[in-house]
């Protein structure tokens, strides 16, 4: 049996690495989530169905993050909303506003540009290594 198998140090290192990854992942996802929400709201959704639609496409968002985000984006004029009855229940439906469409187009251009740059960097880095 390995003498160090009971040592807590590797576990602590793994835990710290995991914390760093979680923190960086959160930063990376933050901007992408807004982009995804705006893109998904080109079609009308209420909170719960929007969350499900995003999750079905591989982008799960916590409810406590998504619902306040929708209100913030509406306050910023990027979304419009209206209360409407569906399945005998009142629900608040959100949709991308005109201003939201313009901003979405700009953000998508920016996102594509960043994506291309990162891919170029990775491509050149791979070439240098090989």
């Amino acid at each position, binding site marked *: 049996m390995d003498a160090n198998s009971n040592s807590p140090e590797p576990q602590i290192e793994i835990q710290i690495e995991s914390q760093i990854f979680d*923190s960086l992942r959160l930063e990376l996802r933050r901007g992408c989530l807004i982009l995804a929400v705006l893109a998904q709201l080109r079609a009308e959704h*209420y*909170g*719960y*169905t929007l*969350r*499900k639609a995003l999750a079905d496409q591989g982008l799960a968002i*916590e*409810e*406590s*993050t998504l*619902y*306040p985000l929708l*209100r913030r984006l509406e306050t910023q004029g990027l979304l419009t909303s209206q*209360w409407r009855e569906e399945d005998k*229940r*009142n*629900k*608040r439906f959100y949709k991308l506003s005109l201003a939201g469409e313009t901003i979405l187009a700009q953000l998508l251009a920016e996102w594509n540009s960043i994506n291309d740059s990162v891919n170029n960097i990775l491509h050149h880095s791979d070439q240098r290594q090989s």
Partner: protein
Amino acid sequence: MNTTNDLLARYLQAIGDHLPAATRDDVLAELRANLQAQLDDRSEELNRPLTDPEVAAILKQHGRPILVAARYLPQQSLIGPAIFPYYLMTLRKAAPFAIIIIFLANCSNILFIHTLPELIAGLLRVLGQLVPDLLIFAAWVTAAFAIAEYVYAHHDAKPFGLSWDPTKLPAVKPQFKGKSRASRIADLIFHCAWMVYVLEIPAHPYLILGPGELYLHMLNARPAPVWHLFYAAVLFLLFFQLVTKITAVFVPAGLWQTPLNFATKVLSVLFSAWLALTNVYFVPTGPATNLKFLADVNHWINVSFRIFLIFVILDLIVEGWKLRPSFQAKRLVF
């Protein structure tokens, strides 16, 4: 009301307790619709009504009510990242001045204490009072910057730090390389000359008293025995310094010199405290002495030494501050 609705109503009520009245009903209605849809969805998947633990699990996963409510509130920091560096810089630059001013202001109370226990207690009180006074100082600075943050966040103020000019930055500071060997030798020579001067004082008191020696004769007074002991202590300190200065000539300044210099300052404070605690500096030489006048002279010399003691303690605090481990500002996550 069934238990699902009861749990949901209690959960929404708990969130509502932390929401502003203006938006509470709207936010809760939207949350109710979303959560209800989620519960219905889950119920359809299981093809049966949800049990209490299942409803509780969904609500628990949604988040603690106070935290859920917080996400609907405007995101504001007491001091945000744009202003925080200026706040930290102000605290760090102003703290030494605040310490000096607070210390001097509090010291006025111990100038006229006559007994040793009272003086020690007084000094401890002054040092102890530094902590709450510094906290109050920090609280005022924090309050001022919190107001600045509020104005900055609510009035579309111009972003901080935009109007600066790289050409107006201070010149590069020369790197400290320690004293040169010639400088250390010169330091030793001056110290030896100073020691010769001090050693000659008992034989030639005018070297330190100047014209005051004649005045002492006229007053029919002479130095008290305490000066003999003090003189011996000063000689000890000078020899201690002589050893460090001789060592410094052969061994360049290193880590060893800083604690030795600090120890010298501690000794200076102890000797000054000793003089400040002495009440009699000059004694009468005969019946012709004006005792009341001599008592006044002793009293004011004592007050002078106490003032001097305050400054050497301040000097010690400043030196101690310089010796503190360098503060590495950690990255702050907002």
